[in-house]
């Protein structure tokens, strides 16, 4: 239908037939989640950009073996995350994702969700500080699920762990964070 954006499966089919423009549209559509997923893993924007870029190229090379009807996002994110992990390891740096709040963020901003209004600025800062003090494993699974808004399958792909492990790891991480919050209650 004219004016209606093509769905993923249509774009992928066209890309599989060699339409580079279709794949470029896929890149446009998924570059943010790919980049941010890589950023969560590498901790640097430069490495994340490289990993996302390489991941898209590698996924393109593998398009022929993408199963029709399969979910594209977890498939892509697994490839991008593999690239990000390789990059993080080869750099030799011990990565630590430091979560930050948007400067000047106001709950009343038009773009914010109603829930955001419920959290005062000090509370957000305290929560971020507690998250940043958590071990990497806990912080990454929480960031993937709540801040990147990845599904369980996508989080598993991004972190390179089974989906069942995502659930148990997330549950334990939330329990530890909850205990921290209760120990030092937010205002």
């Amino acid at each position: 239908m004219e004016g209606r954006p093509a769905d993923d499966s249509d774009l992928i089919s066209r890309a599989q037939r060699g339409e580079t423009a279709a794949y470029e549209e896929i890149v446009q559509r998924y570059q943010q989640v790919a980049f941010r997923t890589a950023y969560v893993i590498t901790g640097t924007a430069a490495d994340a950009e490289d990993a996302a870029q390489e991941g898209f190229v590698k996924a393109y090379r593998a398009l022929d073996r993408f199963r029709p009807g399969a979910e594209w996002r977890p498939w892509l994110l697994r490839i991008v995350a593999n690239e990000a992990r390789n990059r993080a390891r080869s750099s030799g740096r011990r990565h630590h994702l430091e979560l930050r709040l948007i400067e000047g963020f106001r709950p009343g901003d038009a773009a914010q969700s109603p829930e955001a209004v419920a959290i005062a600025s000090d509370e957000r800062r305290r929560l971020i500080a507690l998250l940043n003090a958590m071990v990497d494993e806990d912080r990454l699974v929480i960031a993937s699920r709540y801040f990147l808004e990845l599904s369980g399958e996508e989080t598993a792909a991004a972190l390179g762990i089974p989906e069942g492990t995502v659930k148990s790891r997330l549950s334990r991480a939330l329990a530890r964070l909850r205990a921290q919050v209760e120990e030092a209650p937010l205002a």
Partner: protein
Amino acid sequence: MPDLEDQLTALAGAIEWPTTPRLRVSLPARRGGLGWGRPLAYAAAAVVLIVAVLLAYTPTRDAIAAWVNLHVTINRVQQVPTPSPRPSAALGERLGLGTPTTLNQAQARLAWQVGVPSMLGGPDEVYLQQPPTGPSGGEVTLVYAQRTDIPVSGLTGVSVLVTEARGRVDEIFFQKTVGSEATVEQVTVGGHPAYWISGHPHDFAFVDANGNVYGESLRLATNTLIFDHNGTIVRIEGDMTRAQALQIANSI
């Protein structure tokens, strides 16, 4: 006070992310007609030469990532990091090969045919690695302790290691970090592109089914030939010449 999970959900909008760059993905020419479920096409595609990608793609900042194929990652660095000393354990444990077994037992547990190089004869030891510590399709290593004309390697303690791995297309089986003194050459095995890494030991790590590097400390590897054999990624490692490695590969 809102529930913790609601607070985290609400916090998503307040997280500061780096600006998403406009990714410039240079798309290499793809070979058409490789449909899913065609084993030969799958096997051939598994070792598609990525040099075309490298030529079309701007090298990255601090390391040039060269892909031998979809399952092997090679990182180019100026200097190979020194790996942690290997524990003085049994061969399989020391080299991270998996569980000791026999060729027949390994074959019985794998859905694909293990290739045995006739030039080397029967292996002296066999190891099997399966998920979660190995690739999803499993990985088998044939150990040849001593063979005429191939010295025992000071890095592995044996003459030849032949490792074969199989899994999903998005899995990376082997990760290699190659320094400036090592060379990576493109060769051919059975008509398929293959890679010969030689000249200087390189870092080597196994990668499991979930993309995790198996073991924190990488080990050094000596001369290595990597190629595809009917959809299985095979690596042959030993202090041998390129001609010897190719002879072994062609005898599978």
